[in-house]
């Protein structure tokens, strides 16, 4: 039995059960008082700046990231380790470890409300309720001392004030929703009794518990083997379509993004260097870094040849170069790149690239 096969429409598995009663309670407890405007865009991140103040100096982890996300849309954020992908996610969730991390500028607007200006207590209400997150390593993201059911029930208890029994019941239907067989029997199991894929399903169930508007998945499949990866991605895509959620998919796997994302942002050294829809980027990248990333994917037809790699290392975030931060590793780099930091140029067709010579890159 394929595990994704038995995903049922949400209505049949408790999300819609006792709908009217639950709906009224939900309204009462929900973060509505914060003034969300239903007609405003779902999520807009504008000119976000995050820095880490460490003893070695200030690391500029995110330097002016902007993107937007609407209902039912999937945004892929792509980049190598240290490019600021996860920090972006944490900044949106408001779970940056502060100190050392500080948001030093920009806005994160959810339905028109700038989350960054909200007091911590209000932000807490938004988490899981409006914006939820799936983490990379599902084993370490589950608390080993509590049963899975107990942890799944937590969002209902935190945000909705459900009783233990009510929450437990919801937990079972959530497990069912994400395709875990014999769900009601497994709520009493501990995380280590689940396989890796099952745990990631549990994490997804937990994130979806309160029916959030935005789901951030931070490398949700990195810790899983390839077949399970495909199942989890399919599960995420199905659930997203079903609930018309906005999905931010953070990954370094170009293949994963190509399959499910509508548009992508490529990040490098805390900056978005290319922003476009998936197909135009993959067909014809407009930034040397994207191009290099695509070329470094192993391909069967090039077997036996040397794999293309990107020479050098990402820059030290505490000492970013004055010019383009990709300049030292770029084969298009000229004198100008060393001193003049490129803005995000409009490349046409809704695409942007932060390269002075994007026309040459596009043409190559």
């Amino acid at each position: 039995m394929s595990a994704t096969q038995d995903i049922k429409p949400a209505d049949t598995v408790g999300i819609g059960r006792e709908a009217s009663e639950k709906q009224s309670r939900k309204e009462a407890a929900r973060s509505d008082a914060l003034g969300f405007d239903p007609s405003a865009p779902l999520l807009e991140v504008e000119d976000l700046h995050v820095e880490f103040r460490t003893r070695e100096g200030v690391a500029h982890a995110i330097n002016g990231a902007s993107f937007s996300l609407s209902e039912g849309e999937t945004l892929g954020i792509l980049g190598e380790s240290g490019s600021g992908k996860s920090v972006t996610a944490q900044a949106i969730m408001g779970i940056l470890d502060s100190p050392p991390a500080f948001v030093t500028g920009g806005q994160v607007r959810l339905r028109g409300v700038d989350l960054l200006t909200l007091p911590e207590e209000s932000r807490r209400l938004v988490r899981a309720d409006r914006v939820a997150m799936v983490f990379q390593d599902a084993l370490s993201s589950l608390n080993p001392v509590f049963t899975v059911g107990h942890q799944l029930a937590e969002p209902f208890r935190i945000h909705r004030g459900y009783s233990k029994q009510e929450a437990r019941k919801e937990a079972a239907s959530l497990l069912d929703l994400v395709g875990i067989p014999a769900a009601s029997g497994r709520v009493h199991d501990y995380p280590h009794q689940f396989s890796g894929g099952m745990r990631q399903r549990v994490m997804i169930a937990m994130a979806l518990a309160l029916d959030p508007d935005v789901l951030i998945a931070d490398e949700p499949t990195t810790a899983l083997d390839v077949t399970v990866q495909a199942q989890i991605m399919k599960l995420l895509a199905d659930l997203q379509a079903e609930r018309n959620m906005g999905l931010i998919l953070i990954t370094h796997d170009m293949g994963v993004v190509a399959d499910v994302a509508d548009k992508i942002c490529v990040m490098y050294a805390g900056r978005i260097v290319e922003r476009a829809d998936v197909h135009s980027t993959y067909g014809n990248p407009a930034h040397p870094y994207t191009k290099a990333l695509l070329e470094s994917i192993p391909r069967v037809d090039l077997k036996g040849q040397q794999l293309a790699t990107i020479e050098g290392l990402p820059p030290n975030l505490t000492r970013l170069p004055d010019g383009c931060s990709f300049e030292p590793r770029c084969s298009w780099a000229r004198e100008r790149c060393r001193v003049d930091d490129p803005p995000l140029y409009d490349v046409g067709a809704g695409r942007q690239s932060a390269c002075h010579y994007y026309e040459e890159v596009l043409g190559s």
Partner: protein
Amino acid sequence: MSELATAATAGHTERSGSLWADAWRELYRNPIFVVASVVILIVMSWAVFPTLWTSTGTDGGTCELVDSRLGPSSEHIFGTTFQGCDMYSHVINGARPSIIIAVLVTLATTLIGVALGVIAGFYGGWLDTVLSRITDVFLGLPFLLGALVFLALLGEQNIWTVSAVLVVLSWPPITRIMRGSVIQVKALDYVEAARALGASNMSIIFRHILPNSIAPVIVLATLYLGGFVSAEATLTFLGVGLQIPEISWGITVAQGQDYAIAGYPHLLIFPCAALIITVLAFIVMGDAMRDALDPRGR
């Protein structure tokens, strides 16, 4: 689907439990732990219900100086003390102050250490710096010298003052270990995941941090119990702990030391044996708990 369901439920009969349940199962299957527990329970019952064990009452019974330093006999199975009291009664009744002090001090140091450790480790920043430096200052006090000076300064030496001095000198290591453990757990993904679910700081501390970081402190606290039994005896022996007419192992040892070499070894053997066996039982129990609670050590 139904096959899968039954297979899954069938698997439940031998399901393993949580970390704590696993640890407990490992503990009660460990014969060393069982023996240590029995010894500790027996000593505890000496402390709580001495009259169950001896008919002489809690004051050591009537002491006849003519009976001084008698060897073991059917009437006095452990012999008699220098004052002619029943040694067996003294060994039983001597458990009480040791156990009271050990339990009291361990509870107090654990509470203080866990609270300060969680505050320092979880909140970090200047709070951590201040608490850690204060901890360092107290950690720098030499244990025996500190206890001697404090008790001499206090003037009055009873169970409460001895306990207080031991608490003052013993909370820093627990604070340090708890702080380190909290910092380690705090960085784990499930704490971040809980935060992403909108959990408050209090709920994160009590539901996620504490249950996952307390294990090393429990091990240390068990070792501490044994340590305080011997610390009480040491201070009493040195004359700054409990005083006559209190009955305690430390006092009995102190009184017996002069005559033990002069042909009355039972004056030392019995109180020392009680002391050593008790301390050993706590240490062995602490080791067994460390093995059970830290699977990496297996």
